[in-house]
């Protein structure tokens, strides 16, 4: 009779000293790994739930204003400086960790019409305001260098392009977005959408791409060279989108909406990656 029994040498399976790694022999036979599909399903479900559990995005609440905060401005070079303005005229310079105090303005200019938006040039000592028309101002002068307009309606916001710094974009209340050239002091191009755009933001990494936050709950990313169709339509908000800002990487942007939520969209996707909200 020929007989052989299965006998394992424990030396091959148990580690020699406490300082060694444990030995883990592997056998990929599917019989030894039953229920692959349901276990994978449970793992995927758990991973998604834990990812949400650990996603705590809320860091801090910067208190101090006595009235509603209406506008925010970032310092283009300094990471820690943020300016905020309240509805009662108060301005705060948030310089982490301490909050700043009020300062006296250097220069006061009285204009003829209501100003609805303001933006500063990224390089030169020039800023632009908008109201009835887009005015380009020099910091030292009291009257605008040039005024540009295309159409008869009021303009709600204006933004300078961070890369091609002579370009400006503005949103008007007759549902259009107009691009201006500061060197030639003329409007360049216009695109008319179905509903009014609240603000636009230029991509800090791509020279001619900007994203418009529209009233029809969507955001449209346009390429300035071909304004007839948007590069991407971002659909996820359930109410009007009020503001948009790009991340310095140029790969994502954040949008704030009237539906009390903030969404982070990747530039190349039409759906948001992340949504934040308070109660």
């Amino acid at each position: 009779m020929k007989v052989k029994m299965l006998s394992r040498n424990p030396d091959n399976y148990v580690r020699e000293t406490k300082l060694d790694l444990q030995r883990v022999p592997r056998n990929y036979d599917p019989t030894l790994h039953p229920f692959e599909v349901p276990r994978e399903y449970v793992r995927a479900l758990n991973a998604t739930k834990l990812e949400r559990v650990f996603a705590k995005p809320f860091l801090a609440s910067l208190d101090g204003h006595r009235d509603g905060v209406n506008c925010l401005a970032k310092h283009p070079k300094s990471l820690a400086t943020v300016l905020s303005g309240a509805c009662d005229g108060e301005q705060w310079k948030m310089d982490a960790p301490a909050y700043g105090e009020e300062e006296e303005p250097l220069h006061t200019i009285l204009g003829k019409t209501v100003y609805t938006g303001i933006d500063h040039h990224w390089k030169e000592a020039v800023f632009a305001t908008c109201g009835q028309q887009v005015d380009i101002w020099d910091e030292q002068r009291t009257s605008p260098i040039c005024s540009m307009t295309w159409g008869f309606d009021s303009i709600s916001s204006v933004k300078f392009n961070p890369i091609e710094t002579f370009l400006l974009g503005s949103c008007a209340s007759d549902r259009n977005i107009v691009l201006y050239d500061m060197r030639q002091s003329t409007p360049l191009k216009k695109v008319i959408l179905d509903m009014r755009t609240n603000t636009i933001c230029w991509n800090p990494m791509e020279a001619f791409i900007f994203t418009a936050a529209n009233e029809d709950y969507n955001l449209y990313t346009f390429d300035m060279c071909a304004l007839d169709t948007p590069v991407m339509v971002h659909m996820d908000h359930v109410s009007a989108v009020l503001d948009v800002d790009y991340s310095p990487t140029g790969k994502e942007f954040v949008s704030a909406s009237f539906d009390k939520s903030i969404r982070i969209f990747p530039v190349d996707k039409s759906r948001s990656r992340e949504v934040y909200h308070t109660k």
Partner: protein
Amino acid sequence: MERAPKPGRDVPPKKDKLQAKRKKPRRYWEEETAPTTARASPGPPRNKKRNQELRPQRPKTAHILKKSRISKKPQVPKKLRKRKNPEPQRSLSGAQDPFPGPAPVPVEVVQKFCRIDKSKKLPHSKSKTRNRLEVAEAEEKETSVKAARSELLLAEEPGFLEGEDGEDTAKILQADIVEAVDIASAAKHFDLNLRQFGPYRLNYSRTGRHLAFGGRRGHVAALDWVTKRLMCEINVMETVRDIRFLHSEALLAVAQNRWLHIYDNQGIELHCIRRCDRVTRLEFLPFHFLLATASETGFLTYLDVSVGKIVAALNARAGRLDVMTWNPYNAVIHLGHSNGTVSLWSPAMKEPLAKILCHRGGVRAVAVDSTGTYMATSGLDHQLKIFDLRGTFQPLSARTLPQGAGHLAFSQRGLLVAGMGDVVNIWAGQGQTGPPSLEQPYLTHRLSGPVHGLQFCPFEDVLGVGHSGGITSMLVPGAAEPNFDGLESNPYRSRKQRQEWEVKALLEKVPAELICLDPRALAEVDVISLEQEKKERIERLGYDPEAKTPFQPKPKQKGRSSTASLVKRKRKVMDEDHRDKVRQSLEQQQHKQKKAKPSRARPSALDRFVH
């Protein structure tokens, strides 16, 4: 998907011609062999022509090899296939590899690792879905070949027992095997003489390292049977009907006379579950953390041991339940009844998933093999039958036994053991595919009392038998899977490894609602919901967006687009569609007629009253 650009694509054709005219530089080994005229050894191929001869020859010779071998790389769709043909191997000595190409892999082993069921076809599949499926199938082919190759790394070989010169292995005694085998294996054979506390039932833990047994008169013990270290030994002062380890060797479930009790492996009673009363049989489903209990009251109760809740209490409506086993492939519970049927249960459904008529008398024992393909049943009619569970639920083989088998068990490698009175018979199968052949038993053994419990030890060539005289551990060469997976059940795990494994197993605990006959059902396309959604979309939109648009003939120039010819073309296409439909309906009618005919074959005298 874009292919990498061909190397010669960017080069304009003129240059190629120039290159062909220029002579290729000779390599140093070609120069050495060129002057020799004697061809004692086959030198490296000198001419281009010879190279070309060799290259197409290789795949041809590959086909002549044995039928069952895959000898070249699997065919993948053109997009994924490698572009270059591998050069014939040349060494400095001039010898050529006599076995060119990758090593052959046996087809059965590759088949083991294939998971996609290619017979199922998706209805209404779009080209995108079909493309993705094709890519997935090609990947599966490649990975299954690689996994089959990795089997080379498995360290252990299974055991075997062969008789010499027509010797019947069934007549070989355990004592002879113990003498012939090495000391470590001989120590695995032992007899515990425990006559005082009644017939014993036993259970091995999932890793095969620990053994728990319970005697009818209340004796409960748990030990590490390899090192013979006793973990606990108590008397519960009540009838013990069944005993099971829970997910690890730390917890024991004991079905006592009145209720179900959970003990620690130190003998401390942890729980007394009063909702499970008069339990006759226990089964533990390890991946769902469910303890299934069959009771005399006819209820099958599932208890989730991780949260401590009763998941389902199903009324089997078949009287007293005392034959139960679980299917390791899909975690379905098989109950045997006194009317000869075996019913399959899942905690998600109030009714059994299936009922199989197995025997003419009552069913006395059921066992399912580890792949969930075969079910062995034995009944009061002295028959032992093997059924096919994964296809047709039909009996594959049957055998009349001299005495009815009251206990059945399968081993990891497909050996079947039947306990008939005080004798156990073990049958072995032909290889690992196919049910065990019931002609000749592989091994037999007589015990000192009637058998009350049988289980093969998971990763050892050992069969544990509980009988009225105590516990016997028998040697069965070739019973167990030789190579375990360290991340699933590792008999040599340390305390830390066990803790880590327990946490991961709890995190991966499968919900009880997912138990069904096909465990891969979640991975399939939910065809019913797809069709439901399609109907709803048609209702909502008012029309079917995926319906074929009616044929619009293209207005062709050159005088062929007069109204009459357009109408003619439209008519032609419509007629063709109509003809196809009529043909299909005719075929369906013929099918129905064929099916209906045999039922109307026999005219009976009562027909006059029907019409």
